[in-house]
């Protein structure tokens, strides 16, 4: 894990940044630590628009040039659509900064809370549950 990532985890953990809505479809979110957040910078490797959960795979490069792929879990395509998130928004190679609630076991996966593209546009899947 990169030093930058650890710093981000520490700072956000101290701030008590916690997701407000649990991931719902299909399975419990018990394997994620919703009291912690991580933030990584990288570029989109693949956007898997699938049910019951979609996955945004992000390649993260450390200082030595080693690339680690992180997976960020979100709700399915219709909820992403309701959140205004389209496949064309996050094509492979898109540079972004993404925040999520990490796995408790240290796997390179997290619940996708918010992603901000290099042009400043933000994508928050949980906004898809809004009804008005």
């Amino acid at each position, binding site marked *: 894990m990169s030093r930058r990532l650890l710093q981000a985890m520490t700072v956000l953990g101290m701030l008590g940044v916690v997701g407000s809505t649990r991931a*719902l479809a*299909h*399975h*419990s979110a*018990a*394997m994620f630590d919703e009291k912690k957040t991580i933030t990584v910078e990288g570029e989109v490797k693949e956007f898997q628009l*699938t049910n019951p959960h979609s996955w945004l795979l992000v390649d993260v490069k450390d200082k030595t040039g080693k690339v680690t792929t992180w997976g960020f879990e979100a709700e399915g395509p*219709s909820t992403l659509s309701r959140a205004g998130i389209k496949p064309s928004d996050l094509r492979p190679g898109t540079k972004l900064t993404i925040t999520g609630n990490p796995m408790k*076991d240290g796997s390179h996966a997290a619940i996708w809370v918010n992603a901000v593209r290099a042009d400043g546009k933000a994508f928050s899947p949980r906004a898809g549950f809004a009804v008005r």
Partner: protein
Amino acid sequence: MTRHLTLAACVLPVLLSSACQTGTRVAEAPGVSTPPAGSIAQRTKEQNAALGREHKTAWDLYQALKAEAKGGQTLTASVVPDWTGVYSRPADKGFTFDPDTPAGVATTAKLTPEFQARLDKRIADVKRGIEWDPISTCAPPGHPRWLTEPFLREFVPTPNQTWLINEMVNDIRRVYTDGRDHVPAEDRYPLYNGDSIGFWDGGKLVVHTNQLQGGIYQRQNPDYTDQVETVEIWQRADAATVTADVWVYDPPSLAEPWYVKQAYVRLDPKQDLRIRYWNCAENQNNAVHQTQDGTTQFNGFSFDPARERNGAGKK
């Protein structure tokens, strides 16, 4: 139909009628929403809860509502309520079965001691990080949990049956309104969505459902058993909302019938949402299993081969 009656039908907030919008006489327009006025009273939440307690079984309540509706009506092709739209259940109050559950309260259901203990344990386990949802295997939620899922929905009345659709696992409840009865008791077996029959009372669809499986109302909510039965009154409350008054009877788990009111808000005034096929098993990254301590863990990730090599998360 007189002009006055036509105008009255057009301003009824429970209906959206293209005939009204175009000024067409309702009785002459095919396939539009002009049911006659119903007989079942609009009751407050407290009155509905009391109504549930007045009847020992869901079937008794259903029969009482049918009597109040003077037997109800059968729809014809020229008198079908228009519930067009894509809807979803508001998620802002969380996902408790009763949307009016106060903050900090686990449930508004009056549970039997055994099922209260089960709920208390479930909530205590979650606080310890232990949680398993029975639909993690891609099973459908089943009714009455079906009412709580936060995904896209369509409600489609037709003359002889109404389809209550949830996009999640392509889940459709069929309510038969052609006058048929439930299947004979000796031929019943547990079903995810049970067997639903109903009748119309004006713009209200009254439904009785039996032959259900046991399950949970939602995560961190109580259990119900395969004795559960429900009565529902569905109606279009306004141009943007379809509601369901729901009474749940389940003697092993409920000390008294549980009344809740569900609401589904229309999302697509521009008709820009589309419901797609839902294959729950299409992505290996979503596969999970229940661990020995009873919680949830992923089987492994395609994008994290080191985790798979090390066996982390494996059964």
